[in-house]
């Protein structure tokens, strides 16, 4: 069984976000870039699937040329066999749908007989939660989003997904399928030193949108972020002093008379 996994590089979750001068983007200077949180679960599940069912795991990234180091440590050193990075300007300019088209073409051209594709449930920068389902549609595959557990048996799968208000649902279907990974699906492993060394020799290809037979117009964004802004600053919070009874009394007064929420 061949396995695809999408890996996006994003600002780390704890990064302090600043907006650039003309509000057209986030100022990434000094921000540590990491594998997007939910993609760590995707990588882990891809490797576990291979360990159980055999085959090859290939990772796909639309990002920067310089992402190669992180792909080696965050994917290849963990057990991914090969990695593909699409890093030209056309790829970088693509919106969610464009990225989905690029990743789908890369998967189709570079991984024959792929039965299962893992993505994160959402990236932690854009957080649009679109790319996985878009790829499923472009591939004509089934999808299960926000997956908490997964079993594969021959050509069928059984997955538990996280729905609204804590409702979970167990579904079954036939491969091929796109799985978007929710927190809790697994516990991602750490890279072992010998594997970090080995990862240096694993194949990693840097390709362009044109290499995939696509062009700039075909992957151009259909949705654009006109401007970025920080959340409205909350007026500095007020710390209420005094013993428990006094503080509680004052809080209730403020909630009623000042904030008018009770």
């Amino acid at each position, binding site marked *: 069984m061949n396995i695809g996994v999408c890996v996006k590089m994003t*600002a780390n979750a704890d990064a*302090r*976000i600043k907006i650039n001068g003309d509000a057209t983007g*986030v100022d990434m200077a000094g921000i540590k870039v990491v594998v997007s949180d939910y993609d760590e679960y995707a990588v882990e599940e891809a490797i576990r699937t291979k360990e159980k069912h055999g085959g090859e795991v290939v990772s796909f990234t639309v990002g920067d040329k310089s992402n190669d180091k992180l792909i080696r440590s965050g994917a290849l050193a963990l057990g991914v066999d090969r990695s593909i990075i699409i890093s030209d300007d056309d790829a970088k300019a693509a*919106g*969610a*749908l464009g990225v*989905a088209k690029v990743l789908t073409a890369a998967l189709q051209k570079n991984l024959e007989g792929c039965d299962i594709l893992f993505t994160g449930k959402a990236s*932690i920068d*854009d*957080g*649009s*939660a*679109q790319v996985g*389902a*878009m*790829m499923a*549609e472009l591939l*004509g*595959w*089934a*999808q299960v*989003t*926000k997956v908490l557990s997964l079993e594969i048996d021959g050509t069928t799968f*059984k997955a538990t997904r*996280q*729905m*609204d*208000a*804590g*409702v*979970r*649902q*167990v*579904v*079954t279907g036939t491969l091929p399928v796109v799985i978007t990974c*929710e*927190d*809790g699906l697994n516990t991602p492993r750490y890279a072992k030193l010998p594997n970090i060394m080995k990862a240096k020799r694993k194949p990693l290809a840097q390709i362009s949108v044109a290499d995939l037979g696509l062009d700039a117009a075909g992957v151009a964004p*259909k*949705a*654009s*972020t*006109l401007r*970025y*802004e*920080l*959340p409205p600053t909350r007026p500095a*919070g007020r*710390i*209420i002093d005094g013993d428990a*009874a006094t*503080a509680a009394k004052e*809080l*209730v007064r*403020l*909630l009623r008379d000042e*904030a008018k*929420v*009770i």
Partner: protein
Amino acid sequence: MSGILVFAEHADGAFKSTATELIGKAAELATALGTTVTAAVLGDAPAADLGAAGAAKVYQAAGDFAAYDTGATTDALAAIIREAQPDIVLATASFAASDAFPRLAARFDSGMASECTNLTIEEGKLVGRRPMFSGKCFGSVTVSSSPALFTVRPNSFTQPASTGGAADVVAVAWEATSAALTVVETLATDSAGIDLTTADKVVSGGRSLKSVENFDKVIRSLASTMGAGVGASRAASDAGYCSHSEQVGQTGQMVNPSLYIAAGISGAIQHLAGMRTSKVIVAINKDADAPIFEHATYGIVADLFEVLPAIDAEIRALG
């Protein structure tokens, strides 16, 4: 191509409050754009009633949609979009819409903005304002293609006043073409009471509650006194002090109440992602340096086991 189509979800024979909320907002936007609002309904529901919220016409696809299926929902909504030819399609960012709308975007080769918390019109175009980077910044997004797809978080708008009219209902035929899944089991939530995502007030507890008994005694009782929903951090729900469905944050519920009380919650970025749009935030924490205080409107640095019962007593005294 014209108009705004709203995907109106229903359960147990009634439309969800999020559906009427969104139709109400769509009616306001449509007036500004000089266009009309229609609704899309899948399966058995009193479609004509949506007229009262502001839908002029309702497109209804027959079938059994009780157990959600990506393929059926996508195929039926695609048939409705082909029939209605809307410029804009709106949905609440429920599981169903979040799962099916990106597929629709790919099918119609069009753009989508997810989980908006506001919709406005700028220079004749719909703009969705949406949290990014776990809510640490907002982006204002427009879609240049048609139909432009937007999902919106619950509780972003107020309920419309009923206009009383009945909508015209048009039946739309559709064909299942996408891969279908089989639902084996639905594991219902064990949480009772107020729906967190639409609650006006939420009381949340964290790891520091230490047991189910404490959680019930301190968090649930205050929530009940206040008529508030009950929330929790992942540390609390993972530890089993409350139901998983009560977890607030990036992997849990997104809440947007006018009052959020965080008791013994440190304020990790993943928790903040689910509640930072709350109008008033109250933090109660022993540690004056806890990050939650940076986001709090009011803070009390103290032991929650002393403060929460005192708040409870104080509110009861108000009557």
